[in-house]
C-alpha cells in the first residue's frame, strides 16, 4: 500500500470511529426500556418514525434526492406485513419483517429508474405520483386491503416464538428499538464506506463525480433501493406493533411529516432522523393535548419558521450543541478514568 493510500484509509477509519456521544445516545435509548416503561407506546411510534426518517436521510442527506414518496414503500410493506400475518403465510414476525423490507426494496429498485431523470421538481412529482397511485390502488382493491376501514384481523405471532406482543407495548418497543439499532448499524457502516463517500460526491456535483469515474446512476439506484427497504421495514414494524394497517400509511401527509422530522433533526449525519423523531413525537403529543384539532397549524408554522431562520444556521446550532455535549462527556469520562490525562481524547465525528 502506498503511503498516500494508507493515510487516506487511516483518515477514513478515524472518521468512522464511534464517538463518546454516539455511545451515550444508544445507551440512553436502551436505558429507556427500563427507565420509561409507561411511555413505551409512544416510544414505539418514535422508534418506527426514526427508522423511517433514517431511510429518507440516506437518500436526501447523502444522495441529495428530494422525495415526497417514501410513504409508498412504508405503506406497501405495511400492507404486505399485515396480509402475511392475517393469512398466516409467514408466521414469524422477524422473517415477515425481512420479507416486507425485501418487497419494499424491490419496489424501490423498480421505481428508482424513474427518479434518475429530470430536475428536483420532476423527482418530487414522480415520487409523489407513485405513492398516490399506490394509495388509489389500495383504495380500489378494498377486498384485499380493507379500503377505508383498514386491514382488520391481523394477529401477529410471538417474536421468535418466545415473546408475545403485549398491550402496553413493552415487547413492541424492545423489538422496534432493536430493529432500529441493527438498521442504523448497517446505515452507519455504509455511509462511512467509500460507497458512502461516493454518494456525498454525487450530492455535491453529479457531473463531476461522473467525470472522476463514479457510476452515478448505479450508486443512486443502489441507495434508493436500500432506503426503500428501510422505509418498508418501518412500515412493517408499524403494522406488526399495532396489528392494523389503514390507507393513511400511503398518504401524502405521512411523507410530508417525514420531511419535517428530518429537517428538525438535520440531514446528512444519520442521527438527524432519530433526534428529529423524538422531538417531533413528543411535540405532537404535547400540542395535540393542547389543541387536538389544529395541531397541523403549529406544525406548519414550525416548518415556515425553520426555513426562515435557515437550516444552515440551525445546523450551526446543532454543531455547537453537539460539540459542547461531546466536550462535557469526554471530560466527565476522562475525569473518571485518569484525571491527569483530561481532555486528551480528540473528539471525532
Amino acid at each position, binding site marked *: 500500500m502506498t503511503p498516500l493510500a494508507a493515510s487516506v484509509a487511516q483518515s477514513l477509519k478515524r472518521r468512522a470511529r464511534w464517538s463518546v456521544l454516539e455511545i451515550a445516545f444508544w445507551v440512553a435509548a436502551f436505558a429507556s426500556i427500563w427507565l420509561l416503561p409507561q411511555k413505551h407506546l409512544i416510544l414505539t411510534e418514535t422508534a418506527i418514525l426514526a427508522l423511517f426518517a433514517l431511510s429518507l436521510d440516506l437518500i436526501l442527506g447523502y444522495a441529495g434526492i428530494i422525495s415526497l414518496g417514501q410513504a409508498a414503500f412504508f405503506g406497501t410493506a405495511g400492507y404486505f406485513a399485515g396480509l402475511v400475518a392475517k393469512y398466516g403465510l409467514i408466521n414469524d414476525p422477524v422473517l415477515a419483517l425481512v420479507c416486507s423490507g425485501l418487497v419494499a426494496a424491490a419496489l424501490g429498485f423498480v421505481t428508482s429508474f424513474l427518479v434518475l431523470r429530470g430536475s428536483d421538481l420532476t423527482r418530487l412529482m414522480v415520487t409523489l405520483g407513485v405513492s398516490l*397511485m399506490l394509495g388509489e390502488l389500495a383504495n*380500489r382493491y378494498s377486498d384485499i386491503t380493507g379500503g377505508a376501514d383498514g386491514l382488520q384481523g391481523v394477529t401477529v405471532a410471538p417474536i421468535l416464538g418466545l415473546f408475545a406482543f403485549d398491550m402496553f407495548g413493552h415487547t413492541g418497543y424492545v423489538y422496534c428499538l432493536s430493529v432500529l439499532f441493527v438498521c442504523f448499524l448497517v446505515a452507519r457502516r455504509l455511509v462511512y464506506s467509500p460507497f458512502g463517500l461516493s454518494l456525498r460526491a454525487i450530492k455535491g456535483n453529479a457531473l463531476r463525480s461522473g467525470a472522476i469515474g463514479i457510476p452515478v446512476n448505479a450508486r443512486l439506484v443502489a441507495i434508493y433501493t436500500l432506503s426503500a427497504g428501510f422505509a418498508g421495514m418501518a412500515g412493517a414494524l408499524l403494522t406488526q406493533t399495532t396489528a392494523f394497517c389503514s390507507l393513511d400509511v400511503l398518504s*401524502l401527509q405521512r411523507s410530508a411529516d417525514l420531511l419535517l422530522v428530518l429537517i428538525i433533526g438535520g440531514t446528512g449525519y444519520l442521527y438527524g432522523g432519530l433526534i428529529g423523531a423524538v422531538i417531533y413525537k413528543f411535540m405532537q403529543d404535547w400540542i395535540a393535548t393542547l389543541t387536538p*384539532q*389544529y395541531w397541523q397549524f403549529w406544525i*406548519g408554522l414550525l*416548518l415556515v419558521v425553520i*426555513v426562515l431562520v435557515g*437550516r444552515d444556521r440551525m445546523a450551526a446550532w446543532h454543531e455547537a450543541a453537539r460539540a459542547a455535549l461531546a466536550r462535557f462527556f469526554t471530560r466527565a469520562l476522562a475525569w473518571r478514568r485518569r484525571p491527569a490525562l483530561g481532555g486528551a481524547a480528540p473528539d471525532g465525528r
Partner: protein
Amino acid sequence: MLTILFDGTAYGMLLFVLACGLSVTLGLMNFINLAHGAFAMAGGYCTVVLVNRIGVPFALGLPLAFLATALLGGLCERTLYVHVYARSHLDQVLFTIGLVFMSVAATDYVMGSSQQFVRIPDALQGQFNVFGIGMGKYRLLIIVVCGVLTLALQLILTKTRFGSRLRAAVDDQRVARGLGINVGAVFGITFAFGSGLAGLGGALGAEILGLDPTFPLKYMIYFLIVVTVGGTSGIIGPFLASLLLGIGDVAGKYYVPTLGAFVIYAIMIAVLIVRPHGLFARGTAR
C-alpha cells in the same frame, strides 16, 4: 361522449386558470410553490363570504375575489416569499408545505370544516340542449370566462412591454437584469396576478371542485401535474396540459370510476419518464 368532452373541457379550463400563475412562478424564479392552492381556496372562501353572507351579486363577487386574492398574494410575496427565492428546492418545498398546513388549519378554525357552496344565480343553473347534448349553463360560463382569460393572457404575454419583460426574465434572469429590467418587481406583480387568477379559479370552481379546508392539499397535485407536464416556458404548454388533464380525468372517472385518479397519475408518470421537462418544453433544458 361529447358531454364528457364538454365537461372535461370546462374542468381543464378551470385547472388552467388555477394553475397558470404557478407555472409562471416556477418558470420565472425556479420556485416551487406548493401553497398555490391556498390562494385558490382564499378566493373561493372570499366569494362564499361575499355572496352568501353579505349578499354581493355573483357577477361582482368574482372580480372582488380576484382582487382580494391578488392583494393577499402580493402581500405574502413581499413579506414571506422574497426570503426563500434563493434557497434550495428542499427549503422551498418545506416552506410552502408549511404554509399549506397553516392555511388548512386556519380555514378550518375560521370557517369550519364542512363543505361550502357559493349561491349561484338562477339564470346560470340548468342546461342548454344543443344537438342533443346537455350543456350545463354554469360550465359554459366557465369555458367562456376561462377562454377569454387565456386569450387575454396570451395577448399580454406576447404583445405588451410587460409581457416581453416577463418572457425575458423567464428566459434568462441575469441578462434581463443586466438590461435594466427590474426582475423583482416583474416577479412581484406576476405573483400577485397569478394568485389573483388562482383566487378567481377557486371562486368559479367552488361549485365543481368542492370547497373545504383541505382544498389546497387535494388539488396541489393537480396543479403540479399541469405545470410539470405542460412545461414552464409559456402558457400554451400548461393550457394544453390542463385540457388533457381535465378531459382525461373526467373520462377516467366516467369509464373506470373505481380506479379514481389512478389514470391521471399514470399518465403523468409516463409523460415525465419520456420527457422529464414537460411535454411542451422547448429543446434546451435549464
